[in-house]
């Protein structure tokens, strides 16, 4: 069965992949398209030593650009939590980032066992981690709740035994708009 995170309606501007609003309108008005940057990084299952590398790469990329450090921190935390989920539970996966002047999208996908009950998985403290994970200091059941807390919008899609996709949206405040 295909499940998605609760609160999801067709009117939400997600999943972003299917509806790139900026580009469509720009083209129709014959204005040059908004510059867009995409990058993806491979995540290897069970590789605890190198886990976090993809998020660090994204963090370094954003640091060389003109972003608010607080935004970078939120993105990095979400990336890392997602990466750890893939390393612990998923199969191999991908962390990708897409950004333009208005928004930043982070997508973490894997071909692991999938999440059976997303609503339950979103609850703080709920965890399917095993003892080995806990011994390493992971598996506190805060992964998805943390990602929800630090992103402006989160959407999860999962198919049993067929992987999970977590997509997070971060709005980029206009220059001078930051509080």
């Amino acid at each position, binding site marked *: 069965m295909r499940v998605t995170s609760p609160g999801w309606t067709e009117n939400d501007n997600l999943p972003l992949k299917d509806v790139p609003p900026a580009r469509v309108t720009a083209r129709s008005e014959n204005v040059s398209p908004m510059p867009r940057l995409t*990058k993806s990084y491979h995540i290897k299952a069970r590789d605890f030593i190198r886990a976090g590398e993809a998020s660090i790469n994204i963090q370094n990329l954003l640091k060389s650009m003109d972003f608010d450090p607080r935004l970078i921190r939120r993105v990095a*935390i979400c990336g*890392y939590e997602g990466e750890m989920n893939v390393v612990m539970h998923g199969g191999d996966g991908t962390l990708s980032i897409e950004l333009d002047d208005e928004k930043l999208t982070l997508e973490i996908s894997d071909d692991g066992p999938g999440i059976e009950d997303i609503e339950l998985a979103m609850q703080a403290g709920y965890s399917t981690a095993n003892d080995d994970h806990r011994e390493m200091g992971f598996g506190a059941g805060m992964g998805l709740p943390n990602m929800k807390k630090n992103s402006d919008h989160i959407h999860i899609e999962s198919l049993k035994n067929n992987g999970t996709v977590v997509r997070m949206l971060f709005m980029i405040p206009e220059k001078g708009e930051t509080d």
Partner: protein
Amino acid sequence: MSKKLTSTCFVRFEKELCAGRGTCLPVCPTKAIRIKTKKAVRIVEQCIGCGQCIRVCRERAVSAATEGPEVLNDDHIAIALVSPVLYAQFPGVMPKDVLLGLRQMGFQHTIDMSYFLEMFQYAAEEFISRNRASGQAPWPLISPICPVVVRLIAFKFPNLLPNVLPVLRPVALMAREVKRRLIPEYLARDQKVVLYYINPCPTKKDPACLPADKQPDPPEIALGINDIYPQLIKHVDQIRSADAIPFYQTRFEYETCATGNASLWAMSGGEIADMDIDRSLAVSGMDETIQYLEKIELGLFQDIEYIEFRTCREGCLGGVLNATDKYLAKSAVQKMVKRFGLGRRLHRENILRMYEKGEFQTDKDPSKLTTLFGARKKALSIETMQKIEKVLQLIKGTDCTACGAPDCRTFAEDVVRGEAKLNDCVNIVDK
């Protein structure tokens, strides 16, 4: 546009010796080196004085901006400010004998820095235990002792500047004490005084680099341990074999070093070994330090209270200006600690009284540190980032460094910024 010169405030460079092989390119943590027309050039304001390029240069074209013992002469009072790393260079020798050797060499005063390190340690413990309740600074706190770590944070990880422990560094405590107690009487007698920092690494800024109105008073000169070692070892051997040990008057406790274990500070983990903090870590090595700082930025290690970072492997013993191999020196330190144990000379109550008076407070605003590096490179926009990606796809490189940049990513950025030409890349020329 950034200035490109060959020498920086921390290292000197002899162009004639440079073979242009570029071994220094990838080891520079701030990517400040390029090869232009077969010679290394440096983006001067990006140098943080880590000494990595000195370590890897086979031609010895790079050296520290330090002086040799020939600068000592009779026309001034010479005060040696001694890093405890110096003791570790003499296996089996008591620190006080090393200091006597310095006196024989011509220093009128020798100041044992380990005394001030202890002082710092008490103050650090106090700040950390108060921070548990006050939450004044974020965990994990980062040791400010290694100046390269602090500069690295200011340059690459400015978000972590609030994590740097806001307690005055031991070097600053030492210099303040000397200026308060020791120097005034010489100045009253119109005698010239010079402070000599005896260091294991090139982290002391060359005064020639500072503007005229910022010159230190009294003058400060950095001496590398390897600069003075050949002379010093003769005096130390003499002292150890002599029947009558020469006597020098000392007025202050810190003019000699009564304990054997002071060299512990030179070792990675030496700072936290005797500290009253359970959740602490010691990390050494440039790559390891960067990896940990990256992870702290990701929000990890918040359950740790204090991290001692040293960018040299094995700690200051691994400093590039040392005279004894770091593993031999480490073994010497371990023997000393085995014999003398851990332990402190100072009394906590006295230090706490100073702490209450604000004697350890740094008046420096950490965020000002980022201005150390002058005009920073302009942040990249999405368009420029796209161009960089395009260049990277075009060159399909292997970080061969033949273009004179440390890696393909840096080269692509240089090209887009107009500081390098695309056909400097061998992959492009071949096509």
